[in-house]
């Protein structure tokens, strides 16, 4: 997976900092996480760091709820994102998962 600065900011203000924070909070490099944390506080605010940590923590959990309960994507969302999912290869994930066992 493309990571860090190579991802860019996706056209969103401070997007690169938030992407770096997401990667760091799920990683095991404490120094990187400390730098990512400090960068958000410096460029944005302490409140932004708190909210970013909240969102990151919540999605780290909700991903597990979705995956462990086999929750399917809503039909409307699947239809809306069909071309994007095909283009970036996400549709392959389910097929690969089916071949795991």
């Amino acid at each position, binding site marked *: 997976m493309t990571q860090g600065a190579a991802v860019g900011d996706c056209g969103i203000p401070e997007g690169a900092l*938030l992407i770096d924070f997401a990667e760091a909070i799920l990683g095991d490099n404490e120094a990187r996480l400390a730098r990512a944390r400090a960068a958000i506080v410096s460029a944005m605010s302490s409140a932004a760091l708190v*909210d970013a940590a909240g969102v990151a*923590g919540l*999605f780290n*959990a909700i991903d597990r709820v979705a995956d462990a309960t086999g929750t399917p994507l*809503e039909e409307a969302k699947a239809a809306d994102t069909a071309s994007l999912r095909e283009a970036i290869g996400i549709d392959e994930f*389910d097929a690969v998962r089916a071949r795991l066992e």
Partner: protein
Amino acid sequence: MTDEVSPYPVRADLAAAHARAWDRLARAGTWLDGPHRGRVAAEARHAPGCALCARRKAALSPYELEGTHDGRGELPGNWIEMIHRIVTDPGRLTHAWYQRMLASGIADTEYVEIVSVIAHVTAIDTFARGLGNPVQPLPAPQPGGPSRYRPPEARQNEAWAPNIAWDEHGRNEADYFAGPPANIRRALTLVPDEARSFFDLVGHQYMPGPAMRDFGREYRAITHAQIELLAGRISAINQCVY
């Protein structure tokens, strides 16, 4: 609880939501008593250090490797297998694995409550990590027995675990099924109190339901776009395609 040790001021509503979650974690749930909920939470924290899970994570298929988990010795082996897989490699769980967990003796209701306990601890511990705080000690288990309430409307739908369809809820769950339908809000509804509690966290760590699509106003110190970018990156790393 979290803001007591944080150098960064935590919103009062968020600290209160964490306190409610910690209080519930200590108490008897719907299918697990307080001590078992605490043991599940402790095992979830312990799982990232498991050598078998690390080998499976590195393997092309995690189902190729047999072995014994580095568990804490407080729960049955099938519970430890379930907890460790969900914590360490959630993106490669399969329906066949879910069915094996049930066949091993874990009831579907227990399964959903265990998932919920893992999710609560993951949300709060990851938040603490983001702020550079130590994780909070788990609460002391409280006495009492589980309520054993299974909503009669819960049935097998498209998801692996039974749940309540959005337009099929009964009177007892009418408070929960408000707002626009979303499959993820149905995910834990086999155990409605767990669904309520987890989505209480969602409302404070992420956003309340009505705020999610109110793009005319920002509710947090980061914008809707920044929130979704961050959330999307977390889910991509976890290989969650929901």
